[in-house]
């Protein structure tokens, strides 16, 4: 998320090289399958740079890095849409009052962008959680692998997979609950009930084929 925010700011940078490299980054990570990125970081990277060949570079760490880099590209797009959703007139008003650019960003733009960004970010987290099942290919012992092993040993496929399913449901439900709390927190009506005008549309990215 932090990387995504930095990337989003980079997209609106005044320097062309910064804008350009952010675009290339987003293009690279969104145009290639997550599975390939995962395999590349775990299998190919140690051969390219020997620093990554050490024992410290565990499958878990590789999965963590790959999924974070991947996620940042998506978060960058979402954050950018959030920042753009704040009416430009508010920035103007802030400048007329004498607020600095940083103050305007911190006091006015970011809080409002957060509101717009929460629902798609919720989606991202859920997708990310489920994408962890891909990490099995680089031998991370994640939830689905654990279920498969259990099933193979005891030959109880329905039980094992059903319990994995329940675990996923519980984890995702927790994320969803957190999301709706956050949404209420960032709604600006005195009653804090969703009476605010519809949040500006954010381009929704489909993840099905990642």
């Amino acid at each position, binding site marked *: 998320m932090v990387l995504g925010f930095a990337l989003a700011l980079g997209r609106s940078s005044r320097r062309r090289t910064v804008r350009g490299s952010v675009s290339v980054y987003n293009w690279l990570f969104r145009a290639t399958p997550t599975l390939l990125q995962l395999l590349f970081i775990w299998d190919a990277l140690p051969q390219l740079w020997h620093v990554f060949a050490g024992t410290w570079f565990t499958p878990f760490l590789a999965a963590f890095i790959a999924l974070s880099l991947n996620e940042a590209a998506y978060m960058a797009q979402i954050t950018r849409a959030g920042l753009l959703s704040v009416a430009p007139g508010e920035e103007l008003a802030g400048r007329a009052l004498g607020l600095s650019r940083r103050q305007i960003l911190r*006091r006015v733009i970011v809080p409002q962008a957060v509101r717009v960004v929460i629902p798609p970010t919720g989606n991202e987290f859920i997708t990310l959680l489920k994408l962890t099942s891909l990490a099995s290919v680089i031998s991370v012992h994640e939830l689905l692998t654990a279920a498969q092993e259990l099933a193979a040993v005891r030959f109880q496929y329905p039980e094992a997979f059903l319990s994995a399913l329940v675990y996923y449901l519980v984890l995702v439900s927790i994320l969803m609950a957190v999301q709706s709390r956050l949404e209420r927190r960032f709604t600006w009506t*005195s009653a804090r009930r969703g009476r*605010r005008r519809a949040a500006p549309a954010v381009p929704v990215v489909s993840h099905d084929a990642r």
Partner: protein
Amino acid sequence: MSEAILRAEGLHKRYGELEVLRGVSFEVARGEVKVIIGPSGSGKSTLLRCLSLLEEPDAGEVSLEGRRPGHGEVGMVFQRFNLFQNMTALGNVMVGLTDVRRLPKREARDQAIEFLERVGLRDKAHQYPDELSGGQQQRVAIARALVMRPKAMLFDEPTSALDVELVREVLDVMEGLARDGMTMVVVSHELRFAHHVASSILMMDEGAVIEEAPPAEFFSAPKHERTRRFLALVE
């Protein structure tokens, strides 16, 4: 009339090919109310933005009491209010005091409430912009600018985004300000307001001031053909 407090000298501004201001000069004396009218694209808004330092003119100078205006010294009110949507009415009025003037919260709050009272919105202090009518939002915006104790106030079509029945409450606040001796530059096509409140009226066309006169003279005997045609259209 007393000495000039706000002065623009030979302002030029172009956006690419488009020359928006072609050498605009004028001055406003303390306590004077200048109303600027003119067709859209004549450079009125750009002029106000240069006066409030939101835009840097390509050539020419803006001065307030003989020097460059500081933060919040020239208050600006926009057509679309531009309130910070994530803050209450009170928050909007306070933020300049806490973040620009660095006043302690309690003091900022007291002053903000005082100014909300002045625009008749003390009871709306804890409402968010979303829950206020356009007229109320514009009055909050006026309080937000006033609380900085500006030496002059600029209004960029402050009532043209409002429903007719809400225009009056905003004009009332502005008339009150004028009576209290606030120096004001108002871009507006509210000709009745101009007639009653303005010390003089400026007509702009194609990036230049083509006529300036006190209201009585301006309306009864406009010198310029362009002004006559424009007045006929607006009325």
